[in-house]
Protein backbone atom coordinates (compact mmCIF):
# COMPACT_ATOMS: atom_id res chain seq x y z
CA UNK A 1 0.00 0.00 0.00
CA UNK A 2 2.83 2.30 0.97
CA UNK A 3 4.60 1.74 -2.32
CA UNK A 4 1.44 2.35 -4.29
CA UNK A 5 1.13 5.69 -2.55
CA UNK A 6 4.73 6.50 -3.43
CA UNK A 7 4.14 5.67 -7.08
CA UNK A 8 1.08 7.90 -7.06
CA UNK A 9 3.22 10.71 -5.61
CA UNK A 10 5.65 10.42 -8.50
CA UNK A 11 2.97 10.81 -11.16
CA UNK A 12 1.26 13.54 -9.17
CA UNK A 13 4.55 15.42 -9.29
CA UNK A 14 4.60 15.06 -13.10
CA UNK A 15 1.06 16.41 -13.29
CA UNK A 16 1.90 19.34 -11.02
CA UNK A 17 4.96 20.18 -13.06
CA UNK A 18 2.88 20.16 -16.23
CA UNK A 19 0.41 22.50 -14.54
CA UNK A 20 3.10 24.90 -13.34
CA UNK A 21 4.86 25.00 -16.69
CA UNK A 22 1.70 26.40 -18.22
CA UNK A 23 1.25 28.96 -15.48
CA UNK A 24 4.12 30.96 -16.98
CA UNK A 25 2.16 32.07 -20.01
CA UNK A 26 -0.31 34.46 -18.44
CA UNK A 27 -0.64 36.89 -21.33
CA UNK A 28 -1.08 34.04 -23.78
CA UNK A 29 -3.84 32.69 -21.58
CA UNK A 30 -5.60 36.03 -21.52
CA UNK A 31 -5.44 36.12 -25.30
CA UNK A 32 -6.79 32.59 -25.45
CA UNK A 33 -9.64 33.59 -23.19
CA UNK A 34 -10.55 36.41 -25.53
CA UNK A 35 -10.46 33.99 -28.45
CA UNK A 36 -12.76 31.54 -26.67
CA UNK A 37 -15.19 34.31 -25.92
CA UNK A 38 -15.08 35.62 -29.46
CA UNK A 39 -15.96 32.24 -30.97
CA UNK A 40 -18.74 31.92 -28.44
CA UNK A 41 -20.10 35.29 -29.46
CA UNK A 42 -20.14 34.38 -33.16
CA UNK A 43 -21.86 31.07 -32.37
CA UNK A 44 -24.50 32.96 -30.43
CA UNK A 45 -25.05 35.40 -33.32
CA UNK A 46 -25.35 32.57 -35.84
CA UNK A 47 -27.77 30.47 -33.81
CA UNK A 48 -29.85 33.46 -32.80
CA UNK A 49 -30.29 34.27 -36.49
CA UNK A 50 -31.14 30.66 -37.36
CA UNK A 51 -33.68 30.41 -34.56
CA UNK A 52 -35.22 33.78 -35.40
CA UNK A 53 -36.66 32.46 -38.66
CA UNK A 54 -37.94 29.22 -37.19
CA UNK A 55 -41.01 28.98 -34.98
CA UNK A 56 -41.33 25.18 -34.85
CA UNK A 57 -40.06 23.73 -31.54
CA UNK A 58 -36.52 22.38 -31.67
CA UNK A 59 -34.89 19.60 -29.60
CA UNK A 60 -32.88 22.31 -27.85
CA UNK A 61 -34.22 25.85 -27.42
CA UNK A 62 -32.01 28.87 -28.01
CA UNK A 63 -31.04 29.32 -24.36
CA UNK A 64 -30.03 25.68 -24.14
CA UNK A 65 -27.98 26.03 -27.32
CA UNK A 66 -26.17 29.03 -25.85
CA UNK A 67 -25.44 27.14 -22.63
CA UNK A 68 -24.20 24.22 -24.73
CA UNK A 69 -21.75 26.41 -26.63
CA UNK A 70 -20.58 28.12 -23.45
CA UNK A 71 -19.66 24.67 -22.15
CA UNK A 72 -18.01 23.83 -25.47
CA UNK A 73 -15.72 26.84 -25.14
CA UNK A 74 -15.05 25.93 -21.51
CA UNK A 75 -13.72 22.54 -22.53
CA UNK A 76 -12.27 23.48 -25.92
CA UNK A 77 -8.69 23.34 -24.63
CA UNK A 78 -9.31 19.95 -23.04
CA UNK A 79 -9.85 18.26 -26.39
CA UNK A 80 -7.40 15.64 -27.64
CA UNK A 81 -6.25 17.43 -30.79
CA UNK A 82 -4.00 19.84 -28.87
CA UNK A 83 -1.42 17.09 -28.44
CA UNK A 84 0.95 18.69 -30.97
CA UNK A 85 1.70 21.41 -28.45
CA UNK A 86 2.50 18.97 -25.67
CA UNK A 87 6.06 18.58 -24.43
CA UNK A 88 5.91 14.84 -24.89
CA UNK A 89 5.05 15.10 -28.58
CA UNK A 90 7.90 17.49 -29.26
CA UNK A 91 10.19 15.27 -27.19
CA UNK A 92 9.35 12.40 -29.53
CA UNK A 93 10.14 14.61 -32.51
CA UNK A 94 13.44 16.03 -31.28
CA UNK A 95 14.62 12.82 -29.63
CA UNK A 96 14.79 14.05 -26.05
CA UNK A 97 12.18 11.40 -25.29
CA UNK A 98 15.14 9.05 -24.84
CA UNK A 99 15.91 10.78 -21.56
CA UNK A 100 12.37 10.17 -20.34
CA UNK A 101 12.52 6.53 -21.35
CA UNK A 102 15.57 5.89 -19.19
CA UNK A 103 13.62 6.92 -16.09
CA UNK A 104 12.06 4.14 -14.02
CA UNK A 105 8.50 5.27 -14.71
CA UNK A 106 5.83 3.92 -16.97
CA UNK A 107 5.85 6.12 -20.05
CA UNK A 108 2.12 6.00 -20.75
CA UNK A 109 1.22 6.81 -17.14
CA UNK A 110 3.74 9.64 -17.17
CA UNK A 111 2.18 11.02 -20.36
CA UNK A 112 -1.28 10.60 -18.87
CA UNK A 113 -0.21 12.50 -15.74
CA UNK A 114 1.24 15.26 -17.90
CA UNK A 115 -2.07 15.53 -19.76
CA UNK A 116 -3.99 15.60 -16.47
CA UNK A 117 -1.91 18.56 -15.33
CA UNK A 118 -2.67 20.27 -18.61
CA UNK A 119 -6.38 19.57 -18.26
CA UNK A 120 -6.47 20.96 -14.71
CA UNK A 121 -4.70 24.09 -15.88
CA UNK A 122 -7.07 24.76 -18.74
CA UNK A 123 -10.11 23.93 -16.67
CA UNK A 124 -9.12 26.39 -13.96
CA UNK A 125 -7.43 29.15 -15.90
CA UNK A 126 -9.38 29.04 -19.16
CA UNK A 127 -12.62 27.14 -18.64
CA UNK A 128 -13.71 28.67 -15.37
CA UNK A 129 -13.17 32.32 -16.42
CA UNK A 130 -14.92 31.64 -19.75
CA UNK A 131 -17.88 30.28 -17.82
CA UNK A 132 -18.00 33.18 -15.35
CA UNK A 133 -17.77 35.83 -18.07
CA UNK A 134 -20.46 34.04 -20.07
CA UNK A 135 -22.84 34.12 -17.12
CA UNK A 136 -22.55 37.91 -17.17
CA UNK A 137 -23.38 38.24 -20.85
CA UNK A 138 -25.71 35.37 -21.72
CA UNK A 139 -28.55 33.43 -20.19
CA UNK A 140 -26.60 30.39 -19.06
CA UNK A 141 -28.63 27.61 -17.49
CA UNK A 142 -27.26 26.27 -14.23
CA UNK A 143 -28.63 22.90 -13.08
CA UNK A 144 -30.52 23.15 -9.82
CA UNK A 145 -30.68 19.48 -8.90
CA UNK A 146 -27.82 18.00 -6.96
CA UNK A 147 -28.02 14.71 -8.87
CA UNK A 148 -27.58 16.49 -12.17
CA UNK A 149 -24.59 18.39 -10.84
CA UNK A 150 -22.91 15.28 -9.45
CA UNK A 151 -23.52 13.13 -12.51
CA UNK A 152 -22.30 15.96 -14.71
CA UNK A 153 -19.11 16.29 -12.65
CA UNK A 154 -18.42 12.58 -12.92
CA UNK A 155 -19.21 12.54 -16.64
CA UNK A 156 -16.97 15.57 -17.20
CA UNK A 157 -14.09 13.85 -15.41
CA UNK A 158 -14.62 10.77 -17.55
CA UNK A 159 -14.58 13.02 -20.61
CA UNK A 160 -11.21 14.43 -19.54
CA UNK A 161 -9.74 10.98 -18.91
CA UNK A 162 -11.03 9.83 -22.25
CA UNK A 163 -9.54 12.88 -23.94
CA UNK A 164 -6.14 12.16 -22.38
CA UNK A 165 -6.28 8.53 -23.42
CA UNK A 166 -7.15 9.57 -26.99
CA UNK A 167 -4.34 12.13 -27.01
CA UNK A 168 -1.82 9.43 -26.20
CA UNK A 169 -3.27 6.99 -28.72
CA UNK A 170 -3.21 9.62 -31.49
CA UNK A 171 0.13 11.23 -30.82
CA UNK A 172 2.08 8.06 -30.22
CA UNK A 173 1.92 7.97 -34.01
CA UNK A 174 4.75 10.48 -33.74
CA UNK A 175 7.07 7.48 -33.39
CA UNK A 176 6.25 6.67 -37.00
CA UNK A 177 5.64 10.01 -38.69
CA UNK A 178 7.68 12.36 -36.42
CA UNK A 179 5.76 15.37 -37.69
CA UNK A 180 2.32 15.13 -36.11
CA UNK A 181 0.61 18.13 -37.71
CA UNK A 182 -1.13 15.90 -40.24
CA UNK A 183 -2.60 13.44 -37.80
CA UNK A 184 -3.50 16.25 -35.45
CA UNK A 185 -5.44 18.03 -38.19
CA UNK A 186 -7.19 14.84 -39.15
CA UNK A 187 -8.19 14.12 -35.57
CA UNK A 188 -9.32 17.72 -35.21
CA UNK A 189 -11.90 17.39 -37.94
CA UNK A 190 -13.19 14.00 -36.83
CA UNK A 191 -13.37 14.95 -33.17
CA UNK A 192 -14.94 18.39 -33.58
CA UNK A 193 -17.59 16.80 -35.79
CA UNK A 194 -18.50 13.66 -33.88
CA UNK A 195 -18.15 15.09 -30.39
CA UNK A 196 -20.97 17.49 -31.22
CA UNK A 197 -18.76 20.51 -30.76
CA UNK A 198 -19.70 22.17 -34.07
CA UNK A 199 -23.41 21.42 -33.99
CA UNK A 200 -25.08 19.62 -31.05
CA UNK A 201 -25.94 16.06 -32.04
CA UNK A 202 -29.58 16.68 -31.05
CA UNK A 203 -29.90 18.95 -34.10
CA UNK A 204 -28.47 16.41 -36.54
CA UNK A 205 -30.54 14.35 -38.95
CA UNK A 206 -31.40 10.91 -37.61
CA UNK A 207 -29.02 8.81 -39.72
CA UNK A 208 -25.95 10.87 -38.81
CA UNK A 209 -26.84 11.10 -35.13
CA UNK A 210 -27.11 7.33 -35.16
CA UNK A 211 -23.56 7.07 -36.48
CA UNK A 212 -22.32 9.45 -33.79
CA UNK A 213 -23.89 7.29 -31.08
CA UNK A 214 -21.72 4.39 -32.21
CA UNK A 215 -18.51 6.41 -32.09
CA UNK A 216 -16.55 7.30 -28.94
CA UNK A 217 -16.30 11.05 -29.45
CA UNK A 218 -19.76 12.06 -28.18
CA UNK A 219 -18.32 11.14 -24.77
CA UNK A 220 -16.10 14.22 -24.92
CA UNK A 221 -18.78 16.88 -25.37
CA UNK A 222 -22.28 15.74 -26.11
CA UNK A 223 -22.72 13.26 -23.25
CA UNK A 224 -21.54 15.48 -20.37
CA UNK A 225 -23.34 18.57 -21.68
CA UNK A 226 -26.57 16.72 -22.37
CA UNK A 227 -26.43 15.53 -18.77
CA UNK A 228 -25.85 19.13 -17.71
CA UNK A 229 -28.88 20.31 -19.68
CA UNK A 230 -31.01 17.52 -18.25
CA UNK A 231 -31.50 15.91 -21.67
CA UNK A 232 -30.17 12.58 -20.46
CA UNK A 233 -31.84 11.33 -17.29
CA UNK A 234 -32.45 8.21 -15.24
CA UNK A 235 -30.91 4.94 -16.36
CA UNK A 236 -29.63 6.54 -19.56
CA UNK A 237 -27.14 8.56 -17.53
CA UNK A 238 -25.54 5.32 -16.35
CA UNK A 239 -25.50 3.88 -19.85
CA UNK A 240 -23.90 7.06 -21.18
CA UNK A 241 -21.24 7.07 -18.48
CA UNK A 242 -20.64 3.38 -19.05
CA UNK A 243 -19.96 4.20 -22.70
CA UNK A 244 -17.48 6.88 -21.68
CA UNK A 245 -15.73 4.45 -19.37
CA UNK A 246 -15.62 1.66 -21.93
CA UNK A 247 -14.16 3.88 -24.62
CA UNK A 248 -11.61 5.31 -22.19
CA UNK A 249 -10.38 1.80 -21.43
CA UNK A 250 -10.30 1.03 -25.14
CA UNK A 251 -8.09 4.04 -25.87
CA UNK A 252 -5.81 3.31 -22.92
CA UNK A 253 -5.33 -0.17 -24.37
CA UNK A 254 -4.77 1.17 -27.88
CA UNK A 255 -2.24 3.70 -26.57
CA UNK A 256 -0.38 0.98 -24.69
CA UNK A 257 -0.26 -1.19 -27.80
CA UNK A 258 0.97 1.62 -30.04
CA UNK A 259 3.59 2.79 -27.56
CA UNK A 260 5.00 -0.72 -27.16
CA UNK A 261 5.21 -1.01 -30.93
CA UNK A 262 6.70 2.47 -31.15
CA UNK A 263 9.47 1.77 -28.65
CA UNK A 264 10.47 -1.41 -30.40
CA UNK A 265 11.20 0.50 -33.61
CA UNK A 266 12.38 3.67 -31.95
CA UNK A 267 15.21 5.52 -33.61
CA UNK A 268 16.24 8.52 -31.61
CA UNK A 269 16.33 11.75 -33.58
CA UNK A 270 19.00 14.34 -33.14
CA UNK A 271 22.23 13.94 -31.24
Amino acid sequence: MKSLYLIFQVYLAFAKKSFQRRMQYRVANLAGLTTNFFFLLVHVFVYTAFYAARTAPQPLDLDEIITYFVLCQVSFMLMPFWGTHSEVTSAIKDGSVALQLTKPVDFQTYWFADECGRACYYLLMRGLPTFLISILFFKVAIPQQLTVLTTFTVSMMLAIFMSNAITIAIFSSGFWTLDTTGISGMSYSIITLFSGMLVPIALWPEWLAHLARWLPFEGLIDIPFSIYLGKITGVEVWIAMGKQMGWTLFFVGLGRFLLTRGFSRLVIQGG
Partner: protein
Amino acid sequence: MHHLSLYLHFVKLRIQSQMEYRLSFVFDVFAQASISVIDFFMIALLFNRFKELAGWSLWEVGFLYGMIGICFALAEMFGRGFDVFQRNIARGDFDRVLIRPLGTFFQVFSHEFLLRRFGRIAQALVVLLIANSQLIIPWSFAKVGYLLISLVSGTCFFIGLFVIGATSCFWTVQSIEIINIFTNGGVFMGSYPFSIYRWWFRHFFTFIVPLACVNYFPSLFLLGKVETLGISPVGAQLAPLAGFLFLGVTVLFWRWGVLHYQSTGF
Protein backbone atom coordinates in the same frame (compact mmCIF):
# COMPACT_ATOMS: atom_id res chain seq x y z
CA MET B 1 13.29 40.23 -61.18
CA HIS B 2 16.13 39.21 -58.92
CA HIS B 3 13.68 39.02 -56.02
CA LEU B 4 11.28 36.86 -58.00
CA SER B 5 13.88 34.28 -59.01
CA LEU B 6 15.18 34.22 -55.45
CA TYR B 7 11.64 33.74 -54.18
CA LEU B 8 11.01 30.85 -56.53
CA HIS B 9 14.26 29.29 -55.43
CA PHE B 10 13.24 29.54 -51.76
CA VAL B 11 9.85 28.07 -52.54
CA LYS B 12 11.54 25.11 -54.22
CA LEU B 13 13.68 24.52 -51.13
CA ARG B 14 10.64 24.74 -48.87
CA ILE B 15 8.71 22.23 -50.90
CA GLN B 16 11.64 19.83 -50.82
CA SER B 17 11.92 20.10 -47.06
CA GLN B 18 8.20 19.50 -46.56
CA MET B 19 8.46 16.39 -48.70
CA GLU B 20 10.93 14.95 -46.19
CA TYR B 21 8.06 14.01 -43.87
CA ARG B 22 6.08 12.47 -46.67
CA LEU B 23 3.54 10.47 -44.70
CA SER B 24 2.75 13.46 -42.55
CA PHE B 25 2.47 15.61 -45.66
CA VAL B 26 -0.13 13.34 -47.22
CA PHE B 27 -2.01 13.20 -43.94
CA ASP B 28 -1.96 16.95 -43.66
CA VAL B 29 -3.26 17.64 -47.15
CA PHE B 30 -6.21 15.39 -46.38
CA ALA B 31 -6.59 16.77 -42.90
CA GLN B 32 -6.76 20.34 -44.15
CA ALA B 33 -9.31 19.40 -46.76
CA SER B 34 -11.33 17.36 -44.28
CA ILE B 35 -11.44 20.18 -41.72
CA SER B 36 -13.04 22.49 -44.20
CA VAL B 37 -15.28 19.78 -45.69
CA ILE B 38 -16.63 19.21 -42.21
CA ASP B 39 -17.05 22.92 -41.55
CA PHE B 40 -19.21 23.23 -44.61
CA PHE B 41 -21.00 19.98 -43.91
CA MET B 42 -22.05 21.43 -40.56
CA ILE B 43 -23.38 24.57 -42.20
CA ALA B 44 -25.35 22.32 -44.56
CA LEU B 45 -26.73 20.39 -41.57
CA LEU B 46 -27.98 23.61 -40.03
CA PHE B 47 -29.63 24.64 -43.29
CA ASN B 48 -31.20 21.20 -43.52
CA ARG B 49 -32.96 21.95 -40.24
CA PHE B 50 -33.53 25.71 -40.46
CA LYS B 51 -33.84 26.17 -44.27
CA GLU B 52 -32.57 29.78 -44.37
CA LEU B 53 -30.40 32.27 -42.53
CA ALA B 54 -31.45 35.91 -42.58
CA GLY B 55 -32.75 35.52 -46.13
CA TRP B 56 -29.70 33.64 -47.41
CA SER B 57 -29.96 30.16 -48.90
CA LEU B 58 -27.42 27.39 -48.31
CA TRP B 59 -25.58 27.95 -51.59
CA GLU B 60 -25.46 31.70 -51.18
CA VAL B 61 -23.74 31.05 -47.86
CA GLY B 62 -21.63 28.47 -49.68
CA PHE B 63 -20.44 31.24 -51.99
CA LEU B 64 -19.33 33.31 -48.98
CA TYR B 65 -17.73 30.26 -47.46
CA GLY B 66 -15.84 29.29 -50.61
CA MET B 67 -14.46 32.78 -51.09
CA ILE B 68 -13.20 33.22 -47.56
CA GLY B 69 -11.82 29.67 -47.50
CA ILE B 70 -9.75 30.19 -50.65
CA CYS B 71 -8.40 33.52 -49.39
CA PHE B 72 -7.36 32.13 -46.04
CA ALA B 73 -5.72 29.01 -47.45
CA LEU B 74 -3.78 31.09 -50.00
CA ALA B 75 -2.69 33.45 -47.23
CA GLU B 76 -1.52 30.52 -45.12
CA MET B 77 0.36 29.14 -48.11
CA PHE B 78 2.18 32.35 -48.96
CA GLY B 79 2.23 34.15 -45.62
CA ARG B 80 3.40 31.22 -43.55
CA GLY B 81 6.70 32.96 -42.82
CA PHE B 82 4.87 35.56 -40.76
CA ASP B 83 2.55 33.00 -39.22
CA VAL B 84 5.45 31.10 -37.64
CA PHE B 85 7.65 34.12 -37.15
CA GLN B 86 7.72 33.84 -33.35
CA ARG B 87 10.08 30.87 -33.69
CA ASN B 88 12.67 33.09 -35.34
CA ILE B 89 12.35 35.68 -32.62
CA ALA B 90 12.46 33.19 -29.77
CA ARG B 91 15.61 31.55 -31.15
CA GLY B 92 17.27 34.82 -31.99
CA ASP B 93 17.33 33.86 -35.67
CA PHE B 94 16.14 37.28 -36.72
CA ASP B 95 19.67 38.60 -36.16
CA ARG B 96 20.72 36.67 -39.23
CA VAL B 97 17.91 38.22 -41.26
CA LEU B 98 19.11 41.68 -40.31
CA ILE B 99 22.65 41.23 -41.60
CA ARG B 100 21.65 39.92 -45.01
CA PRO B 101 21.54 42.35 -47.93
CA LEU B 102 17.81 41.99 -48.52
CA GLY B 103 14.72 43.63 -47.09
CA THR B 104 13.46 42.04 -43.88
CA PHE B 105 9.89 41.84 -45.13
CA PHE B 106 10.94 39.99 -48.26
CA GLN B 107 13.12 37.57 -46.32
CA VAL B 108 10.44 36.62 -43.84
CA PHE B 109 7.87 36.39 -46.60
CA SER B 110 10.01 34.06 -48.65
CA HIS B 111 11.15 32.05 -45.66
CA GLU B 112 8.20 29.66 -45.75
CA PHE B 113 5.83 28.28 -48.32
CA LEU B 114 3.18 25.86 -47.15
CA LEU B 115 2.43 23.63 -50.10
CA ARG B 116 0.11 21.39 -48.10
CA ARG B 117 -2.58 24.06 -48.01
CA PHE B 118 -3.56 23.24 -51.56
CA GLY B 119 -5.92 20.63 -50.12
CA ARG B 120 -7.89 23.33 -48.43
CA ILE B 121 -7.79 25.62 -51.45
CA ALA B 122 -9.15 22.83 -53.63
CA GLN B 123 -11.97 22.09 -51.21
CA ALA B 124 -13.04 25.72 -50.89
CA LEU B 125 -12.86 26.08 -54.65
CA VAL B 126 -15.12 23.07 -55.10
CA VAL B 127 -17.70 24.58 -52.73
CA LEU B 128 -17.50 27.87 -54.62
CA LEU B 129 -18.01 26.12 -57.96
CA ILE B 130 -20.94 24.04 -56.71
CA ALA B 131 -22.48 27.16 -55.21
CA ASN B 132 -22.05 28.88 -58.54
CA SER B 133 -23.76 26.04 -60.39
CA GLN B 134 -26.71 26.16 -57.96
CA LEU B 135 -27.10 29.92 -58.19
CA ILE B 136 -27.86 31.94 -61.25
CA ILE B 137 -25.11 34.51 -61.46
CA PRO B 138 -24.96 36.52 -64.70
CA TRP B 139 -21.19 36.29 -65.18
CA SER B 140 -19.32 38.70 -67.42
CA PHE B 141 -15.59 39.23 -67.92
CA ALA B 142 -15.72 42.20 -65.61
CA LYS B 143 -17.40 40.17 -62.89
CA VAL B 144 -14.91 37.30 -63.14
CA GLY B 145 -12.12 39.86 -62.90
CA TYR B 146 -13.83 41.42 -59.92
CA LEU B 147 -14.07 38.02 -58.22
CA LEU B 148 -10.37 37.35 -58.81
CA ILE B 149 -9.41 40.75 -57.46
CA SER B 150 -11.59 40.12 -54.41
CA LEU B 151 -9.84 36.80 -53.81
CA VAL B 152 -6.41 38.42 -54.04
CA SER B 153 -7.63 41.19 -51.77
CA GLY B 154 -8.84 38.66 -49.22
CA THR B 155 -5.49 36.88 -49.37
CA CYS B 156 -3.73 40.20 -48.76
CA PHE B 157 -6.05 40.87 -45.86
CA PHE B 158 -5.16 37.60 -44.11
CA ILE B 159 -1.45 37.98 -44.85
CA GLY B 160 -1.76 41.45 -43.30
CA LEU B 161 -3.13 39.83 -40.14
CA PHE B 162 -0.18 37.43 -40.04
CA VAL B 163 2.15 40.42 -40.43
CA ILE B 164 0.52 42.13 -37.45
CA GLY B 165 0.90 38.95 -35.42
CA ALA B 166 4.56 38.64 -36.42
CA THR B 167 5.32 42.30 -35.76
CA SER B 168 3.89 42.10 -32.27
CA CYS B 169 6.54 39.45 -31.54
CA PHE B 170 9.14 42.22 -31.55
CA TRP B 171 7.65 43.29 -28.23
CA THR B 172 6.08 40.16 -26.78
CA VAL B 173 8.50 37.47 -28.13
CA GLN B 174 5.71 34.90 -27.92
CA SER B 175 3.25 35.28 -30.73
CA ILE B 176 -0.01 36.72 -29.54
CA GLU B 177 -2.74 34.16 -29.79
CA ILE B 178 -5.24 36.98 -30.09
CA ILE B 179 -4.57 37.25 -33.81
CA ASN B 180 -6.37 33.89 -34.11
CA ILE B 181 -9.57 35.77 -33.47
CA PHE B 182 -9.11 37.56 -36.75
CA THR B 183 -7.60 34.73 -38.79
CA ASN B 184 -9.47 31.57 -37.80
CA GLY B 185 -12.29 33.59 -36.33
CA GLY B 186 -12.41 35.65 -39.51
CA VAL B 187 -12.91 32.55 -41.63
CA PHE B 188 -15.65 31.39 -39.30
CA MET B 189 -17.40 34.77 -39.24
CA GLY B 190 -16.89 35.37 -42.93
CA SER B 191 -18.74 32.16 -43.73
CA TYR B 192 -22.01 33.77 -42.64
CA PRO B 193 -23.76 36.87 -43.95
CA PHE B 194 -22.72 39.92 -41.96
CA SER B 195 -26.29 41.04 -41.48
CA ILE B 196 -26.71 38.52 -38.65
CA TYR B 197 -24.15 40.32 -36.47
CA ARG B 198 -24.81 43.24 -34.17
CA TRP B 199 -24.06 46.70 -35.53
CA TRP B 200 -20.92 47.31 -33.43
CA PHE B 201 -19.54 43.94 -34.45
CA ARG B 202 -20.31 44.60 -38.11
CA HIS B 203 -18.77 48.06 -38.08
CA PHE B 204 -15.62 46.85 -36.39
CA PHE B 205 -15.15 44.16 -39.05
CA THR B 206 -15.84 46.58 -41.88
CA PHE B 207 -13.97 49.75 -41.00
CA ILE B 208 -11.20 48.70 -38.60
CA VAL B 209 -10.50 45.11 -39.60
CA PRO B 210 -11.98 45.09 -43.11
CA LEU B 211 -13.08 41.47 -43.24
CA ALA B 212 -16.52 42.31 -44.66
CA CYS B 213 -14.88 44.18 -47.53
CA VAL B 214 -13.09 41.12 -48.92
CA ASN B 215 -15.95 38.64 -49.14
CA TYR B 216 -19.30 39.90 -47.86
CA PHE B 217 -19.61 43.03 -49.99
CA PRO B 218 -18.15 41.36 -53.08
CA SER B 219 -20.61 38.48 -52.62
CA LEU B 220 -23.50 40.91 -52.21
CA PHE B 221 -22.50 42.49 -55.49
CA LEU B 222 -21.97 39.24 -57.39
CA LEU B 223 -25.13 37.60 -56.04
CA GLY B 224 -27.17 40.68 -56.89
CA LYS B 225 -28.15 41.37 -53.29
CA VAL B 226 -26.79 44.92 -53.09
CA GLU B 227 -30.01 46.70 -54.00
CA THR B 228 -32.14 44.75 -51.56
CA LEU B 229 -30.00 45.82 -48.63
CA GLY B 230 -29.77 49.51 -49.42
CA ILE B 231 -25.97 49.51 -49.70
CA SER B 232 -24.48 51.71 -52.40
CA PRO B 233 -23.37 49.53 -55.36
CA VAL B 234 -20.28 51.65 -55.89
CA GLY B 235 -19.28 51.07 -52.29
CA ALA B 236 -19.66 47.31 -52.70
CA GLN B 237 -17.59 47.40 -55.89
CA LEU B 238 -14.78 49.39 -54.31
CA ALA B 239 -14.78 47.35 -51.07
CA PRO B 240 -12.03 44.88 -52.12
CA LEU B 241 -9.56 47.75 -52.22
CA ALA B 242 -9.62 47.63 -48.43
CA GLY B 243 -7.73 44.34 -48.43
CA PHE B 244 -4.78 45.84 -50.32
CA LEU B 245 -4.85 48.95 -48.19
CA PHE B 246 -4.85 46.83 -45.05
CA LEU B 247 -1.75 44.92 -46.16
CA GLY B 248 -0.05 48.23 -46.96
CA VAL B 249 -0.70 49.56 -43.47
CA THR B 250 0.59 46.37 -41.87
CA VAL B 251 3.80 46.57 -43.91
CA LEU B 252 4.37 50.03 -42.45
CA PHE B 253 3.68 48.62 -39.00
CA TRP B 254 6.26 45.89 -39.71
CA ARG B 255 8.92 48.43 -40.69
CA TRP B 256 8.30 50.33 -37.50
CA GLY B 257 8.37 47.11 -35.47
CA VAL B 258 11.74 46.06 -36.89
CA LEU B 259 13.24 49.26 -35.42
CA HIS B 260 12.19 48.03 -31.98
CA TYR B 261 13.75 44.62 -32.31
CA GLN B 262 15.88 43.44 -29.42
CA SER B 263 17.64 40.15 -29.90
CA THR B 264 16.94 37.22 -27.63
CA GLY B 265 20.01 35.42 -28.98
CA PHE B 266 23.19 34.67 -27.17
